[in-house]
């Protein structure tokens, strides 16, 4: 299955890219995806340790680490916002 990751603000700057397309063999939970990403790039450890970062799956905020991620899903990484 394929999922899209979108990065914003300091996370985009830190990773030096605005998005990733990830190919996985099966559906996984958000928690499992976090571990997978940390194993690929240690920068993700810093991101996931920052409690101010919010995660939105298909435009809805994730409030359960066990939430399943499915083929075609879009997961966005959002640091605290500063509009207005």
């Amino acid at each position: 299955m394929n999922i899209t990751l979108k990065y914003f603000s300091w996370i985009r700057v830190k990773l030096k890219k605005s998005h990733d397309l990830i190919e996985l063999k099966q559906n996984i939970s958000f928690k499992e995806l976090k571990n997978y990403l940390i194993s690929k790039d240690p920068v993700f450890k810093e991101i996931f340790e920052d409690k101010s970062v919010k995660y939105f799956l298909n435009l809805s905020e994730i409030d359960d680490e066990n939430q399943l991620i499915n083929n075609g899903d879009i997961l966005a990484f959002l640091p605290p916002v500063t509009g207005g």
Partner: protein
Amino acid sequence: MIKITNESFDLETEFKCVSSNTNGAYSFFLGTVRSDLSSSNKKIKGIYLECYEELALVQLKKIRSKALNNWKLNECLIIHRIGKLDLGEKIVLVITASSHRANAIKACEFVIDSLKIDVAFWKFHLLDNDQKEMVLQKSLDNEKMLKWKDIIN
């Protein structure tokens, strides 16, 4: 009406969009780019606004809907710029329209307070050396939002 745009906007034109004989009061909030010092004490020459547009539109619709329902507004317009903006340029416009002034004023304040902490925009200062410096969220903005919790359902 909600708009996210990299184009500037004209106040009179936008006012005509919400103007109606049923309204007796309008409240406006206009945010602009001010000459400021960055967190590293450098002069800024403008700002860059990043946005997750699909999400920001959903979030703005929710805020607008709450404002319309809680203060019985006749109309609520929100425009937010994105991209590169020079000093003095318009960033954000909120216009609320109601029969009487109290509702329009309160609703306008709620919309801009919410927008500051609940919508997917990120501001960067543009420095003289063409570098970008991230603007951090202010704790004051979060504190301001707390006062609305008892008012908004």
